[in-house]
C-alpha cells in the first residue's frame, strides 16, 4: 500500500473520462513501436504537429523582443490579460478585414486547447453541448471535466447528455439540423478536424438560423481557416446574424507553426448575451483576468510579426506547403481506390476503410508501413471505419509515406 490517503474525494467528473486523452495515447503507441523496431524510420502523420521551420521574419521578431527584455527601455512585465493591444488590433484588421470585429472583442491566448476549457469554465456545469461526430476530442473531454455530461456508455461510445451530430459522407459532413436536439452550446469546427470538411456558406447560414431559433451559442473553431482553398467561409462572422449567437476560437498553431510557441485568440462579440441580457464578453473577460495571466509576450511579438505583410506571405507559403502535402496524400489514397475526404480545405485526409475497425487499421498501418495515423474512433463513434492522416511533415516523408502506402495497399 503506497501510503496515507487524504480524505478528499476524487472529482467524479475526472472519473467519467475514458482512458487518456487521445493524442498522448497515440504518442505512447508511437514510442512503444519505436522501441519494438528501433531501426525503423517511423513517419508520423498522426498528431497534427507542424514540422516546417517558422519563417525568419517571425522568429527574428520574437528573438528581438526577448533581447529587449534585457534593456531598461524594452523590459515589460505583466501584459494585459486580454492581450497586447497592437496584436488585438492586427488580428481584427488583418484577419477579419471588413467584418466589423473590434479589437476589444478579441482575447489573445496561449492556444485553442486552453481557450476551450476557459470557455467551459465560463459556461459552467449547467449547460448542455452538441458536438459533431467525429470531432476534436477537447470539446467533449472539457465538457466532461466541467460536469456538463453524464457517464460514458460503452455500447454507444458516447457520453450521456451530449448531443452528437453525425457528420458523414451521406450528409456532406454537416449535421442534419432537423434531427438535432436543442442544446445550449454547439461546437462546430470548420474546416473540420478530423474530416477536413469546410462548411459551405449555406450550411453555416442554416447553423446560425438554428442557433438563433433555439437560443443557442455556437462555438466556432476556425483554427484551420488558413487552409481554405475555395470560397467556403473562413469565419462564422461572415454569416449575417452570427454576432448574436457565436463565439469564434482560432490559433496560430497550424497557421504559423506555433504549436510549441503557443498563441491563439477567441472572439466574443459584444452582442452575444446570456438569457438575462448579460453580455457574455463581460464574463469571459473576468475568466481571462482571474484564471489566466496573458499569453507570453514573446509569443505575442511573434504573432504581430505573422500579421505584417511580409509575415503573412511567409506563413502562407508554409501553409501552402502543407496543403500540397495533403494533396499528395489524398491522391495516393484515391489512386488506391479508397474513398478519401477532406484534404482540400484542411491539412487532414479522412480515409474510409469500410467494414474495418479504425484501431485495427491504425495498428496494421503502423506495423506494416511504420506510419502513425489516428484511428477515426478516437474522434467519436462516428469516426469508426476511418483513419485521419495528417499532412504535416517534411515533403520527403510525405512522399516516402505515399510510397509505403502504395506498396502495402495496392
Amino acid at each position, binding site marked *: 500500500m503506497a501510503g496515507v490517503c487524504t480524505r478528499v474525494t476524487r472529482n467524479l467528473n475526472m472519473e467519467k473520462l475514458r482512458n487518456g486523452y487521445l493524442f498522448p495515447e497515440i504518442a505512447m503507441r508511437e514510442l512503444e513501436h519505436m522501441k519494438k523496431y528501433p531501426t525503423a524510420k517511423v513517419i508520423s502523420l498522426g498528431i497534427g504537429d507542424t514540422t516546417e521551420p517558422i519563417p525568419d521574419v517571425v522568429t527574428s521578431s520574437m528573438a528581438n523582443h526577448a533581447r529587449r527584455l534585457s534593456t531598461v527601455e524594452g523590459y515589460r512585465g505583466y501584459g494585459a490579460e486580454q492581450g497586447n493591444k497592437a496584436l488585438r488590433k492586427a488580428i481584427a484588421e488583418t484577419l477579419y478585414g471588413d467584418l466589423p470585429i473590434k479589437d476589444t472583442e478579441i482575447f489573445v491566448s496561449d492556444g485553442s486547447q486552453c481557450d476551450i476549457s476557459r470557455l467551459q469554465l465560463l459556461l459552467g456545469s449547467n449547460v448542455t453541448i452538441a458536438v459533431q461526430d467525429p470531432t476534436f476530442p477537447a470539446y467533449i473531454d*472539457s465538457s466532461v471535466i466541467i460536469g456538463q455530461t453524464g457517464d460514458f456508455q460503452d455500447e454507444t461510445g458516447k457520453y450521456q447528455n451530449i448531443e452528437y451530430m453525425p457528420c458523414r459522407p451521406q450528409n456532406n459532413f454537416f449535421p442534419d439540423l432537423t434531427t438535432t436536439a436543442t442544446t445550449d452550446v454547439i461546437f462546430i469546427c470548420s474546416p473540420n478536424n478530423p474530416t477536413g470538411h469546410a462548411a459551405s456558406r449555406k450550411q453555416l447560414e442554416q447553423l446560425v438560423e438554428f442557433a438563433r431559433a433555439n437560443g443557442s451559442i455556437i462555438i466556432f473553431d476556425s483554427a484551420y481557416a488558413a487552409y481554405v482553398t475555395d470560397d467556403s467561409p473562413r469565419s462564422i462572422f461572415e454569416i449575417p446574424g452570427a454576432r448574436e449567437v457565436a463565439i469564434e476560437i482560432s490559433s496560430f498553431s497550424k497557421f504559423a507553426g506555433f504549436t510549441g510557441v503557443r498563441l491563439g485568440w477567441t472572439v466574443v462579440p459584444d452582442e452575444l448575451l446570456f438569457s438575462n441580457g448579460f453580455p457574455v464578453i463581460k464574463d469571459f473577460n473576468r475568466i481571462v483576468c482571474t484564471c489566466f495571466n496573458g499569453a507570453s509576450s514573446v509569443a505575442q511579438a511573434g504573432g504581430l510579426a505573422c500579421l505584417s505583410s511580409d509575415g503573412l506571405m511567409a506563413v502562407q507559403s508554409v501553409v501552402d506547403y502543407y496543403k500540397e502535402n495533403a494533396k499528395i496524400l489524398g491522391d495516393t489514397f484515391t489512386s488506391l481506390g479508397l474513398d478519401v475526404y477532406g484534404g482540400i480545405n484542411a491539412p487532414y485526409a479522412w480515409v474510409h476503410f469500410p467494414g474495418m475497425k479504425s484501431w485495427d487499421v491504425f495498428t496494421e498501418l503502423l506495423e506494416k508501413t511504420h506510419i502513425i495515423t489516428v484511428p477515426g474512433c478516437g474522434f467519436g463513434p462516428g469516426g469508426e471505419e476511418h483513419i485521419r492522416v495528417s499532412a504535416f511533415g517534411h515533403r520527403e516523408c510525405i512522399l516516402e509515406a505515399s510510397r509505403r502506402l502504395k506498396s502495402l495497399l495496392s
Partner: protein
Amino acid sequence: MYSLMSSSPSISSSSSSFLGQTHFDSRNPNARLPTKDSWICKCVATPPTETTAHTTKVSRNANMAKLQAGYLFPEIARRRSAHMLKYPDGQVISLGIGDTTEPIPEVITFGMAKKAHALSTLEGYSGYGAEQGEKQLRAAIASTYYGDLSLEESDIFVSDGAKSDISRLQVMFGSNVTMAVQDPSYPAYVDSSVILGQTGQFQKDVEKYRKIEYMKCNPENGFFPDLSTVSRTDIIFFCSPNNPTGNAATREQLTRLVQFAKDNGSILVYDSAYAMYISDDSPRSIFEIPGAKEVAIEVSSFSKYAGFTGVRLGWTVVPKELLYSDGFPVAKDFNRIVCTTFNGASNISQAGGLACLSPEGLEAMHKVVGFYQENTNIIMETFTSLGFSVYGGKNAPYVWVHFPGQSSWDVFSEILEKTHVVTTPGSGFGPAGDGFIRVSAFGHRGNVLEACKRFKQLYK
C-alpha cells in the same frame, strides 16, 4: 437589463454586412424597420418593452454572478489610469500591482532568443512539446529546488504561471470540495473557487463567501492561523512567503500545518512563488517538512525570480504519494487536466527557464532578487521611521503597513491623491486585510526612493 457595450455597427455594402442589432423581427409587429424611410408601426396593443436585440437562451453561469466586481488588480490598474488622466503631470509611481520592473539578465534572454532563432531552422524547429513541460527543464527544476527533497522530474508540471495553475487545480478538484484560505490572501484562490462553484454567496456584511473557511492572519497571531479554530476543509490554500502580508511561516508552524492537514485528510496547496526572497532560515518548500508529500501540492513561478511576469512560466509539484480518499493518485488526474485543458508552456519561455537554472542564470536571478530586497528594506525603513507598525518585507517583496481603524481603500485613495503613489488596499485581499496597505517593492530604485520621500512628506 444590461446595455450593449457597443453602438450599432454601420451597415456596409460588403458581403459581410448584416443587419445585426437592427434586425427586424417578423414576429414582433411593433419593431422598427431599419430603412431610410423608416416608419413607426402604430398599434393599439401595449407598446413593446423588449429590445429587438437577440438574447440567447443560455443561462448565465450562476457562479460568475456570485463574483463581486472585477478581479482586484485590474481594478487597481483602472484607478491608476484614472488618476493619471486626472493628473497628467503627476508622475505616478506604481508600488501597487506586484509587477517586476528590472530587465531580465542577458544570460536568460539570450537563451530565449537562441530558441526563437532555432525555430527557423530544420534541426532546431520543434512543434508541440510535452504538456507537462520539457524534460530538461523539469529535471532542472527538480534538481535545483527539490534536489535533496527526493522529488523527481516526473513530479514537476511546467506551466504558464501560478495563476493558470491555481485554476487548473480547481478544475481538477471540482465543485464538491471545500476550501480554506488565509485571510488576507492572493485573490485568485477565492475567485477561482467561486467560479468553480465551491462556494456560496458573498456576504456583504462580513465580506466573505459562504462555505469558504477564512483563516485570519494578523499581527496578533503572528500571521499564522490559529489552527485550533479552523474547521476542516478538503483543500487548504497557503502562501508562504505570503502575498500580501510578506510573512514567511516557520518550520515549526509548517510542521503543525502539515500535521493539521494529515489529521483532517486535507490537501494543502502551497504557493511558494516568493521563496527566493527568504532571507532567514524559513522553509522554502513545503516538502522540507516530513510527511508533506502525502498532503501537499506546491505551486511556484519564475515571475518574481526572473522578471517573467510577461514571459509566463511556472510549475506545480504533485508528489506521487498524494492520494484521493479512494487511493487514486492526484498526480494522475492533474496530468489528465494538463493534457486536456492545456497544451504546454511556450517553448521559448521554457528555454528561458532552462537558462535561469544554469549556474550563471541562478546567480543572475539572485542579483535581481537582491535588488528588490534592497527596495523592500528602503520601504520598510521609511514606514518604520514614520512610526507605523510594519510587517513583512524581510522574506518577501511586500511591506504590510498597518493603518489601524482606517478603511484601506480610503488610505489607498489618500496616498494616491496626495503622493501619486499606487499601493494596494489590504481589504482587496480579504476582510482581515482592512486597516492595512500592501506596498510592493518592485520598481526602479529611483522611483522607490522618490516614493519613500513622498511618504515621508505626507506622514511626517
